[in-house]
């Protein structure tokens, strides 16, 4: 399946929208709107407002996340911004600064 991958050396400045999983290994600035999962890998950097179903952060995220299902900050994830989601997981080792809202 053709998953969408933003590779290491790619820098996107703008808006990404879609209905499929998105894996970010490079840099994205702007806005991300997905009806599927967003995965920010170790090498990935996101400076954007994010609206998705699921988010998995192993890299760097700066911006607000609004998720309809779940946000997970992995142990090597770093995030600055507000999270709004019914389920929020923050693993041991993750770095996070911001507001959390689990209201449904």
């Amino acid at each position: 399946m053709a998953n969408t991958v933003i590779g290491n050396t790619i820098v996107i400045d703008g808006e990404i929208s879609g209905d499929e999983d998105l894996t970010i290994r490079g840099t994205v600035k702007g806005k991300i709107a997905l009806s599927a999962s967003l995965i920010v890998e170790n090498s990935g950097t996101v400076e954007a407002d994010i609206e998705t179903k699921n988010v998995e952060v192993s890299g760097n995220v700066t911006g607000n996340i609004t998720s309809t299902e779940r946000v997970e900050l992995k142990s090597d994830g770093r995030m600055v911004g507000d999270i709004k989601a019914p389920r929020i997981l923050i693993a041991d080792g993750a770095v996070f600064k911001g507001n959390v809202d689990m209201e449904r």
Partner: protein
Amino acid sequence: MATARTPTTSSDGATIIGESVHIRGQLNGGEDLHVLGRVEGRVDLERTLVVAQSGIVKAEVSVKNAVISGVVVGNIHASESVEITREGRMVGDIFSPRIIIVDGASFRGNVDMGDIANMPARKPSAERPRPTPVARPAAPVAPARPAVTAKPGAKPALAPAAKAPEKPAERAPEKAPEKAPEPTRPATVTPLEPPAAKGLPQKAQKTRVIVKRK
């Protein structure tokens, strides 16, 4: 989970924009980019842009190589080559030293291959970024295409590398009609003229033509 999934989709440094994904804005990078979805804005790459059949790019594109099987609206500046495959459609200008437009492709725009006068002769072995044999078979238009690419020598030089077996077969019938008329003319004339007139078959022909017109 993420690590388990990703290796199957893109092994190394290739970026994929999936079918349902729409990017608007600026995209820079140093690796290959495969567009199956939509990209609007600007694309600057140090490597190859591949627009798949389902891909739509409406952007100013600046890359090393571009292979277009989808739709591109916008200008492309390529430092090496641009190829529009059989499925490709493009509206915009192309600036590239090598431009390949395959039979079946649709293109509207200007082509600029740079300083044609000082261009070195190309070797048949010239490194194409990715030979797409699938798009080649329907090449009977190949002889006519150099007019589009504005460099008659380019196509024959490239083609033999890609499909050596088929090319000679095509060219043979093409040359045949050129030579054929000359032998046939005297043949048709001789029955009408006495054997002595054989030395002037052309005059005899001219008169015949006039008669036909009247």
